[in-house]
């Protein structure tokens, strides 16, 4: 008779008689580099995203400067402009927006769902280090004259590998985040009661999981092809054309899905009332996720953007944003209004997203013929900047959980205004240029745009940089330790505000109550 089962009481008795010595917690650099704590990993993602993002922004500023005199190349050379252009375009998603979005999600989502850790903490940590490696390889590939349009075959191969590594890192983070929401929710916290932000991260993670593997598969084919002559996918320059579906609507929307959750969470918390239109908001976020599925464009069929499916998806994508706005407005109608920096960030991020999605809807109308022009870059910029504003806003809103104490409110109120103005100044001229017939992405200098409007774009970039500096100025004081930081500075309604500020390893110091509604903290306050 084979018995493989050990009675549970035997195990517990054995552990009682031989208690294991507590392992000393690592300190200093080891606590950062070897940590599986989701807050540390989130902070690493955020810091690295800001670092690499600054580089991407500088590149964007140089392109804006170059575009003021579009007929001549003053900053870039004829040999390198295409490489810098592709680095900039890919960098906006993989080096700027995604690390910021993943960073704040990793730091906040486990707290929001009442989990003591993120699912697969070592995988989450591995995703960061893989992303960092991929980002380094991406820059190295360009440094060795690789990337699309590069003159060195090994550099082009390295670019493909770097893109695959970056994609893989995002997928690992997506699995970790989605599993946290699906499997580690606190008792009683059903999916219908899940906070908006955690729900939006779940939707985003699932969309990453069903679309980015298509990019991964494409990169596998690209690698095999390029290693053997590059006759099928296209020569070096052709590689970029094969991944542009990733940088245009609807696929680019997947980067900014969490913006909807962030805005819904912050706006409804600020109103300090229960959300009655919760199903509409949750459904809206889910619908936006479905409408963001753009992997069907990966076949590189130019006619795909003329199909009713594409046009319908682009037009319908506006509705979910309106549903979120309606849910927030209804909550404000019943609650009260408090102007906070979080509110300003939420509104700015939502308006930037609305701008991008509305432009995407407009551009999909047959007859306007803006596909492949600078118009697409404008849409992409709006979505990426919405994700950036939302992520920085998230750090500000959850500063006591992500950092160490509340961020400064005064500069925090100014920053989102500057960021929104900068976004409008960067995006709208590109949209106008695209509608006016400028073929930006096809221009020999890859800058495009109408000369006079390009000055506005440059001013927009400067305003954006000012906005980011102001946001960082608001966040810097939150990095230093403080005593008696309030656990719930915003009179929040979701579980993360039950955790001490800053949260310890394991997040919560006491057992959580069984959740009985979507606003467990309002329940607790009412009971008290």
């Amino acid at each position: 008779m084979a018995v493989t089962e050990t009675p549970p009481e035997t195990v517990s008795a054995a552990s009682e008689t031989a208690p294991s010595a507590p392992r000393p917690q690592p300190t200093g650099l080891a606590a950062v580099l070897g940590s599986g704590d989701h807050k540390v990993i989130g902070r690493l993602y955020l810091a690295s995203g800001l670092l690499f993002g600054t580089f991407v922004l500088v590149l964007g500023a140089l392109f804006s400067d170059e575009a003021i005199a579009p007929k001549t190349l003053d900053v870039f050379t004829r040999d390198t402009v295409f490489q810098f252009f592709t680095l900039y375009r890919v960098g906006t998603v993989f080096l700027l927006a995604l690390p910021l979005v993943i960073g704040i999600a990793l730091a906040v989502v486990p707290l929001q769902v009442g989990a003591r850790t993120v699912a697969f903490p070592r995988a989450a940590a591995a995703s960061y280090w893989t992303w960092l490696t991929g980002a380094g390889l991406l820059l190295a590939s360009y440094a060795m004259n690789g990337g699309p349009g590069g003159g060195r075959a090994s550099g082009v191969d390295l670019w493909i590998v770097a893109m695959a590594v970056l994609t893989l890192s995002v997928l690992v983070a997506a699995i970790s985040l989605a599993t946290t929401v699906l499997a580690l929710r606190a008792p009683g916290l059903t999916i219908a009661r899940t906070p908006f932000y955690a729900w939006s991260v779940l939707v985003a993670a699932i969309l990453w999981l069903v679309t980015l593997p298509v990019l991964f598969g494409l990169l596998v084919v690209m690698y095999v092809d390029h290693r053997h002559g590059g006759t099928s996918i296209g020569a070096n320059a052709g590689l970029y054309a094969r991944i542009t579906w990733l940088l245009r609507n609807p696929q680019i929307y997947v980067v900014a899905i969490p913006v909807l959750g962030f805005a819904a969470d912050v706006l409804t918390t600020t109103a300090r009332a229960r959300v009655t239109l919760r199903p509409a908001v949750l459904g809206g976020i889910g619908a936006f996720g479905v409408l963001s599925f753009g992997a069907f464009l990966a076949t590189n069929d130019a006619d795909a953007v003329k199909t009713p499916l594409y046009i319908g998806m682009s037009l319908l994508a506006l509705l979910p944003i309106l549903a979120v706005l309606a849910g927030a407005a209804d909550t404000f109608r019943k609650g009260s209004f408090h102007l906070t920096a979080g509110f300003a960030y939420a509104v700015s991020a939502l308006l930037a997203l609305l701008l991008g999605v509305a432009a995407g809807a407009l551009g999909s109308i047959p007859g306007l013929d803006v596909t492949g022009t600078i118009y697409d870059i404008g849409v992409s910029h709006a979505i990426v900047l919405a994700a950036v504003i939302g992520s920085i806003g998230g750090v500000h809103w959850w500063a006591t959980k992500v950092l160490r104490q509340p961020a400064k409110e005064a500069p925090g109120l100014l920053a989102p205004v500057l960021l929104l103005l900068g976004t409008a100044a960067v995006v709208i001229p590109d949209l106008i240029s695209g509608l006016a017939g400028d073929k930006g992405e096809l221009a020999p200098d890859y800058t495009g745009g109408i000369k006079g409007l390009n000055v506005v774009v440059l001013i927009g970039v400067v305003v954006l940089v000012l906005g980011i500096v102001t946001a960082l100025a608001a966040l810097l004081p939150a990095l230093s330790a403080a005593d008696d930081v309030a656990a719930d500075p915003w009179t929040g309604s979701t579980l993360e505000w039950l955790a001490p500020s800053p949260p310890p390893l394991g997040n919560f110091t006491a057992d959580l109550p069984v959740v009985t509604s979507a606003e467990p903290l309002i329940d607790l306050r009412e009971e008290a």
Partner: protein
Amino acid sequence: MAADATFALPPAAPPARPRVLLVGTALASIGTFMAFAGLLGIYLSARSAVIHKGVAWLPKGASIPLTPGNMGFATMLLSGVTMWWAVDAVGRNDRQSAYLGLGLTIFFGLAVINATSFTYTQMHLPVRSTPGVFIYAVTGAHLAMIIAGLVFATVMTFRTLGGEYQGRDREGLTAAAVFWYATIAVSAVIWLAIYVTK
């Protein structure tokens, strides 16, 4: 003590909730499946474009023999049964059957790798051709998935039988089985799109 006496074992511990590994593996399987959906979508799109020009998809002298493809796919289907057997045996704490089921699954997996390698030698298809690039990329990626599935299943079986998961709580091996079934689903699509349709 009578030889036929029955011994009442303590009830198995309730399955650990939540099933994090199972959920994570299901998500990873979906992602992997989508990678192959993308690969095959690009493959079929390229194939359709070539055929539309009135050109034969496979270059002259190249062919994709169906027999090894059929054998490979049938073997994958069979491995699905043995994997199910291993999962069931672990649930019954039957080590012998679990090892046998897993051993057969690994054997079948290796047989598929062998069949695919044999197909490569018979295709006479240069990599430096559009069909070559796509077919080697798709089937090569599937071989990598098979190897990953086998390693996952082996590790999870030993961890389960080593006591990490107890009795009916066989989450680890169930997770490995989910990934293996995804591998079989992918092989079904590849078999149809590449070996049958050519």
